[in-house]
Structure formats: structure tokens, C-alpha cells
């Protein structure tokens, strides 16, 4: 057909007119008033409620902006001693836990085969009756696996499981078990010190990802700001030692890569130089024992094994001794080996040698407080404890399993065979608010409220200068037919009756919380009425003294022998070390159902919404692998497939994979996305702490067919840290 000018204009006119049609639709908005006015709510004016973040175990204080009964935004509580008004991305994304479309909206009962669903909605009365009946049937054979909890909930769960002769296991995969064990052996206390980074002027960190997810990243972030910029004439110097350049390492003045698992050996080398050159603060009586421990291996051998030149070791030792307030921290990948506890004990010993114990700008412990239960005495478990529990289920001495916000089927490697618990358990109850991998195997689900709908408290008595007893309060009405776990356990106690009902006479968790806080507040502020003080505490977000006396620690560095790390898989078949690291946003995977965290770019690779394998470019070149190629990573225990991302800041003999993806369930945003690197890991433990050595498995990488562009924020080929990856070599 010939297209004339007029016809063209007509068609153009038609198209323009047609395209404007949808714009003519008239919007109708409604103004829906309250049926009954709420005295506390002024439409258009926000109410801010102080509460406590429960996205990780740090317990940051938060302020939630609520408009007309809807939580809109979460910020940090400026007066809270943990985070001083700051908040991380995970804390901000807590709103997507509340409003998540995949939240369980009421109690559910499994109908089909275990693990295959479907689940049928039941009433709370039906659910609670069946559960209590199961507790009666399985008397003395209960067990509970929960994420670490503190305060009133920890004491209630402990009381309940004690009364039922059950076993309570608090587990988190990136937990602090190794660090606590090492501290117990070095300093005689499970409590972690306050690392006084803000007042230090030299920081030597052995792998601690303290700006990412370690212990209490927001409080470390605040302290790091003061360390670098908070004092007029002092800018703290920061050295990070680890095999992979993490976000924390990329902030350091100097990153020193070393062979995985040899952090303890490097600490030994530094200690050896300090002793050799007379740079320690040790008394003469201590000198001999330290000499025995630190001079067992020659500096030359240490340098060869760690791949850190002798002059660098010497330089670090001299820098430490010349600083006014040096501080040494160890954790993260340094603790994720079979020699993790030994490594951390050696690092603790270095702190003793430089006189950092109890010093300003060093490690400080606060006087033990009258315990509300905190993480130090709540009994955190390593993977070995979970294996003991699995054995009890296999032997039949445990038959009833409770799960609370813990997802061991996702976070534990299949090689540990923990799924046997789900085969042997005769009944499984989950209180989780989402259908995660483990909850999918439950027989009965009694979903908990979201933390923004719940009463609670959180106790943090270590890693910060003063104890923080924080309160959580409901900031919105419950969205669904869920019940807080505390109420559910109290209800069960009364249904079971007898002495149990007498031990926990409260009818709601709120009553229990108030009664515990009455004791605390009366002790700390007796002249005023409890109700007045309680309201003030809720407004402030908790209770924290301004100062507290320091606890004097007498370090007892045991005479230890350095143990080289043990790896599963021989080096000829599996030439590479594997390092699965917790993702900044998704952590161990619990953030994977929050789209804000999925789209939060990894700060070093800018990867989003998926998994990737990080490979040093020189290693990739020798294997004939190009950026974006699809590879299979295989260990003796499993294999995964994903695309390759070039990462020059990585030891050439090592691959790194972010954790958190690869869920089999856990809602629309998490399910089936990416791969879970823990499937590669074998049952390799740090024996002293009973923690899984997540860096203790060797792998091989082979190119396979396929490959696609990875979802990344930065698509120009330039990496924010390393520049153009095509031109950047390896280490």
C-alpha cells in the first residue's frame, strides 16, 4: 500500500488520540473516617513508637513512624546505646516482614504427606488443643530449636522446656559460638567484651566483618565513624587481614591477604616479633609461657605458610607497639575453620601482650548484671549440639519437635543429615510466621505475630559499653489471625495445668513482661510508681544506665599449640578452598523474602536478586573460565551451579559464594532463587566450640554449558572497587 502524506497524518492523529484515552478515566477517591475516633491518632500526623529491632541478635533500638495505624518507616532510636540513632538496611526492611504477602495468616494443619502439604486452616482452639495433646503424648520427649532469643521470652521458653523435661537449643548459623568459647578459655567468661573501637587509634582485624554482619554491625559502624573521624587530631589506622577482600576490608587502610585458615599462625608471628623485640606489656612471670606458645614455629615457616612476607609481619608488630591504643579483633572467616577457637585464643593473647585488656580503646567487660537473660547465658548452640539433638531423635528419646524462627534445613549442610530429625520426629510444631524450608515439614503451624505487633524485650550486656535492656511494643494492631509465641506457651501451660500452671501464673505474655520489668524498674528507680516508670521506659525504648563499673578480667592464656586447619577433600581432586560468606542483606537467608534486601546491591560486586561464584581472574584464566560463564562447583558432599563473577580481591586458591539464596520455600521472593552454598560443606568441625567449620571444605570448579548476564546494578563492566575487571589481574 502506498503511504501518502495525508494518510500518515490521519494515522498519527488517530494514534495520538487513542493513546490519550486511558488518561480520561476519572479517579474517584474515598475519604473513609473512623467509626470510633482513636484519641491517640490524628489523621495526617505521625506517631513515633520506640521499640527494638529483631532482625538480628544485636537488638538495636528503633523508632517506628505510624500513620493512622499503619507502620510506615523505621529509623534508629537516637538515645539507644547500641545504635545511637542509626539503623542498617535489614532493620529498615523489617517493614517487609510485617507486610509480607507470604506471611502465614492463621494456624495451619498439614493434610498430606509430611513435607508435601497441603496445609488446612484450623482455628486456634483446634490448633492449641492438638498441640497440648501432643505434649501430653510425648511427655518428656520435647525439643525446641529456636533462633537466639533473650530476656523475658528466653526465660519463659527455658522454664517451659525445663518443666516439660525438654531440650531448648538456640541456634544461629553465623553465631558467635567459637568466639564465646575462645573468650571463655582466655578470659574465663562467656560474655563478649566491649571492643572500644571509638577510642582506639590502631585496629588490627583478623577477618571480622564488623561493618557487615558481625555481632552488632550498627554499633560497630557508629564506633568506626568515631575511630576514623570523631577526634580532631587522630584518625585511627585500620588493617584487615583475611583471604577475601570483604566490604570491611575495602574500608581498611591496608588489606593483607593470607592463606585461608592461617590467621592464628599470623597472630603467632606477630606475637613472636613483639616478644623478640621486647615490645610487650607482659610481666616477667608471663613472658616465659608466652614465649613457649609463640615461638613454637619459626617466623620463616609462618611467613611461608601464611604467604605474608616477614617484613609485613614485623611491620604490623611494630605498628601495634607504637600505637597509643591498639586493638585487635578476630572472627568471621578466621573463626570458620577447624582451628577457629585456637586462632581466636592466639588473637586474645596478642591483646594481652599489647595491654589492651580493660584499657580504654581496648577490650572492656562490664560488671555482670543481675540477669535478665542475655545471649551470654542463654546457651547458644553450635552445630555439634544440633547433631546431638539429631541423635536423640534417632534414638527415640526425643519425639516432639518445636521450631521457632529457625530454619535448620536451610542453614545446615545436608551432609550433617539433620533432616533425619524431620523423619524421626513424630510430631513437628512450628511457630514461624513464614513457610520456610523447615516449617514446610511441620505438622502444625501456630504462627507468631510480627515483632512490630508484639510485646517483648531484648537484653544486650556485651559488645557495648553499658547494658541495654530494650523493650518491644506493638506499634500496629495485628494484621492477621496470629498469636504471639509467649501467649501461646502460657496458654499451653494452663491447659497442661498442675505445677506448670503455677510456675507461670500469667495469662498473657504482656502480663509476664510487665511483672519482670516491675522488678527491674523498682530496683533501679524505686521512689516512683511502676506505671509511670513503665510508660517512660516504653517511650524511651528501654533502660540503660549512663555508666557502669568495669569488670576486671584476669586473662588466663592457656598453653596452646597451633593447629593447622583441616580441610575435607584432597587437594588434587578439589584444588580450591570454598568460602561461603553471609550476605550483607540476606545474612544467613532470613532476609531472602524481603524484596528490598534482594534488590540491595552487594557493595563489592553490585550483584542483586541471585547467586554467583566469585573467582580470582588469574584462577579463572587458568581454568578457561570467562566472566558470566556458568560453572559447576563440586565438593565431596554436593554441587551447585551458578554464573561466575570475577573478583580480584580473592586468594587465587579460593572461591567465595554469598549465602542466603537457594530456598526451597520461604515465599515468592525467596523460593527457587539462586543456590545455597552450604550444600557443598562437609561435616568438618572446630572441635573446641562444636561449630561447623564453614571454610573447611575443598571444591573444584568446572565450566558447563550455558551462562547468562548476572543481575547486577553496575552493567558497564566496571566494578566499584576493582575497576574494569577485564584489565585487572588477580592478587
Amino acid at each position, binding site marked *: 500500500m502506498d503511504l501518502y502524506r*495525508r*494518510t500518515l497524518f*490521519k*494515522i498519527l*492523529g*488517530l494514534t495520538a*488520540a*487513542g493513546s*490519550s*484515552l486511558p488518561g*480520561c478515566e*476519572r479517579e*474517584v*477517591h*474515598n*475519604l*473513609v*473516617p*473512623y*467509626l*470510633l*475516633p482513636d484519641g491517640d491518632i*490524628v*489523621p*495526617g*500526623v505521625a506517631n513515633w513508637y520506640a521499640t527494638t529491632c529483631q532482625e538480628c541478635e544485636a537488638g538495636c533500638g528503633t523508632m517506628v513512624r505510624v500513620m493512622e495505624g499503619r507502620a510506615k518507616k523505621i529509623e534508629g532510636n537516637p538515645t539507644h546505646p547500641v545504635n545511637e540513632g542509626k539503623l542498617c538496611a535489614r532493620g529498615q526492611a523489617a517493614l517487609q516482614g510485617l507486610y509480607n504477602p507470604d506471611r502465614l495468616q492463621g494456624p495451619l494443619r498439614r493434610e498430606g504427606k509430611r513435607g508435601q502439604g497441603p496445609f488446612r486452616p484450623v482455628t486456634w482452639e483446634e490448633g492449641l488443643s492438638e498441640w497440648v495433646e501432643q505434649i501430653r503424648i510425648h511427655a518428656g520427649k520435647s525439643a525446641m530449636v529456636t533462633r537466639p532469643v533473650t530476656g523475658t521470652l528466653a526465660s519463659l521458653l527455658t522454664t517451659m522446656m525445663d518443666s516439660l523435661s525438654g531440650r531448648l537449643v538456640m541456634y544461629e548459623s553465623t553465631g558467635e559460638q567459637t568466639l564465646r568459647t575462645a573468650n571463655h578459655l582466655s578470659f574465663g567468661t562467656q560474655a563478649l567484651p566491649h571492643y572500644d573501637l571509638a577510642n582506639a587509634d590502631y585496629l588490627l582485624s583478623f577477618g571480622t566483618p564488623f561493618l557487615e554482619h558481625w555481632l552488632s554491625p550498627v554499633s560497630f559502624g557508629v564506633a568506626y565513624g568515631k575511630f576514623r573521624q570523631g577526634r580532631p587530631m587522630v584518625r585511627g589506622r585500620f588493617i584487615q587481614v583475611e583471604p577475601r577482600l570483604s566490604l570491611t576490608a575495602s574500608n581498611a587502610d591496608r588489606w593483607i591477604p593470607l592463606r585461608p585458615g592461617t590467621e592464628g599462625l599470623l597472630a603467632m608471628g606477630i606475637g613472636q616479633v613483639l616478644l623478640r623485640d621486647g615490645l610487650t606489656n607482659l610481666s616477667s612471670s608471663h613472658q616465659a609461657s608466652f614465649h613457649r606458645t609463640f615461638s613454637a614455629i619459626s617466623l620463616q615457616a609462618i611467613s611461608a605458610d601464611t604467604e605474608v612476607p616477614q617484613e609485613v609481619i614485623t611491620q604490623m608488630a611494630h605498628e601495634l607497639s607504637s600505637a597509643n591504643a591498639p586493638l585487635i579483633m578476630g572472627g568471621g572467616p578466621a573463626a570458620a575453620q577447624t582451628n577457629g577457637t585456637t586462632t581466636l585464643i592466639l588473637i586474645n593473647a596478642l591483646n594481652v601482650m599489647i595491654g589492651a585488656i580493660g584499657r580504654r580503646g581496648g577490650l572492656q567487660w562490664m560488671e555482670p548484671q543481675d540477669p535478665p537473660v542475655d545471649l551470654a547465658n542463654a546457651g547458644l548452640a553450635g552445630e555439634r549440639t544440633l547433631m546431638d539433638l539429631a541423635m536423640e531423635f534417632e534414638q527415640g528419646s526425643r519425639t516432639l519437635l518445636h521450631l521457632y524462627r529457625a530454619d535448620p534445613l536451610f542453614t545446615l549442610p545436608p551432609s550433617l543429615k539433620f533432616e533425619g530429625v524431620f523423619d524421626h520426629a513424630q510430631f513437628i510444631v512450628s511457630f514461624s510466621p513464614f513457610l520456610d524450608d523447615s516449617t514446610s515439614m511441620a505438622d502444625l503451624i501456630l504462627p507468631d505475630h510480627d515483632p512490630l505487633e508484639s510485646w517483648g524485650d531484648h537484653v544486650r550486656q556485651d559488645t557495648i559499653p553499658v547494658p541495654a535492656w530494650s523493650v518491644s511494643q506493638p506499634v500496629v494492631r495485628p494484621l492477621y489471625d496470629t498469636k504471639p509465641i509467649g501467649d501461646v506457651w502460657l496458654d499451653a501451660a494452663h491447659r497442661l495445668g498442675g505445677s506448670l500452671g503455677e510456675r507461670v501464673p500469667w495469662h498473657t505474655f504482656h502480663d509476664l513482661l510487665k511483672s519482670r520489668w516491675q522488678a527491674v524498674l523498682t530496683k533501679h528507680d524505686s521512689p516512683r510508681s511502676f506505671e509511670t516508670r513503665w510508660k517512660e521506659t516504653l517511650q524511651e525504648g528501654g533502660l540503660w544506665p549512663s555508666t557502669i563499673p568495669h569488670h576486671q578480667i584476669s586473662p588466663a592464656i592457656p598453653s596452646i599449640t597451633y593447629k593447622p586447619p583441616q580441610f575435607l577433600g584432597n587437594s588434587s581432586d578439589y584444588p580450591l578452598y570454598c568460602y561461603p560468606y553471609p550476605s550483607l542483606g540476606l545474612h544467613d537467608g532470613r532476609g531472602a523474602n524481603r524484596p528490598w534486601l534482594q534488590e540491595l546491591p552487594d557493595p563489592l560486586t553490585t550483584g542483586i536478586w541471585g547467586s554467583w561464584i566469585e573467582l580470582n581472574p588469574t584462577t579463572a584464566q587458568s581454568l578457561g573460565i570467562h566472566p558470566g560463564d556458568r560453572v559447576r562447583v563440586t565438593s565431596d558432599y554436593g554441587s551447585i551451579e551458578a554464573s561466575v563473577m570475577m573478583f580480584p580481591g580473592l586468594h587465587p586458591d579460593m572461591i567465595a559464594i554469598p549465602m542466603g539464596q537457594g530456598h526451597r520455600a520461604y515465599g515468592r521472593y525467596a523460593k527457587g532463587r539462586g543456590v545455597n552454598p552450604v550444600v557443598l560443606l562437609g561435616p568438618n568441625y572446630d572441635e573446641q566450640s562444636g561449630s561447623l567449620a564453614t571454610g573447611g571444605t575443598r571444591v573444584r570448579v568446572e565450566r558447563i554449558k550455558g551462562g547468562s548476564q548476572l543481575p547486577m546494578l553496575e552493567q558497564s563492566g566496571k566494578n566499584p572497587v576493582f575497576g574494569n575487571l577485564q584489565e585487572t589481574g588477580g592478587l
Partner: protein
Amino acid sequence: MFGKFKGVILALLAGTVATGIGALYSIGSADLPVQDRQPLRFSHRLHAGILNIHCQFCHRYATHSPVAGVPSVALCQTCHESLSEATPDMNMLQIYWNDKRPIPWIRLQRLPDHVYFTHEMHLFAGLSCVSCHGKVDRMSGTPRAPTYEMGWCLTCHEQQGASRDCWTCHK
């Protein structure tokens, strides 16, 4: 055979579409009462005019909130439950109250999202409600407001000596 009339057909089609658009546009700007029919006929003339109830008795957030607020159903009931006379609309109110349902009023005044406006600030400056909303105390059926366009706002800001900085309203 259509080749000959192709131009005519296209012109007709374009005309039809243009007429349709014109009609839709005029409906959109003409405040047809059908579109703005409230769930029950509330008369500002009766309440604010004849009964002389102060605007802020019902719109009670105007002095301390960005929005003036619509009264809760309970507030309506404080007077209406003691009235013996009942019109169909009052019966309707009673039904909402008995069913514990809020009344889904149609919103007649709305500023675009990119405009920052607070009632509080304007009342504080001494403006009265009728300065912007017109003599609602004489209107039995409240019509959709004339569009609050920027020029209209600016004229008043100029007359009153208020800020004319862009950031005042477009934050």
C-alpha cells in the same frame, strides 16, 4: 474497493475518537452530580449554615494536622442518636452505625501528591475555611471544588505576602 474511501473512513474514525475524548474530558471537568454522589446526602447548608455548627466541630484536625479530617461515625451519632425525626438519609446513617461500618465518603477536594499543603499553617495565618472552600454553608449538596491550581494559590500568596518560593509547596 475500500481504497477509494480509505481517507474518508480514517477521517470519520479520527472524528469519532476526538468527539469521544471531548465528551470524556467535559465529563471529567464538569462535576457531574452522578459521579460525586455521596453514600448519603449530607448538607453543609443545614449543618454549617442553618444549625450554625462550627466547621472545626466536625473537621477537628484542621488546626493541628495537614488534613482537616472527616468526622468519625461516632461523632455524627453524638447528635443524631438523640434526634427523633428520621429522614431516609438519617436512617442510612443509623444503618452504617449499627453495622459498624465507616461511611465511604467521596473525596471532593484533592491536591496532587507533589504539593505540600497543611491546613494547620493556613489557619494559623488567619485564613478562614470559606476563603478557600467557598460558602459551603449555603450549599446543600457540596460540589467538587474548583481545581486548586497553582496560579490560584500564588495569587493569594502574593496578596497575603506569603512565601512564593517553589520549595514552600513543592518539597
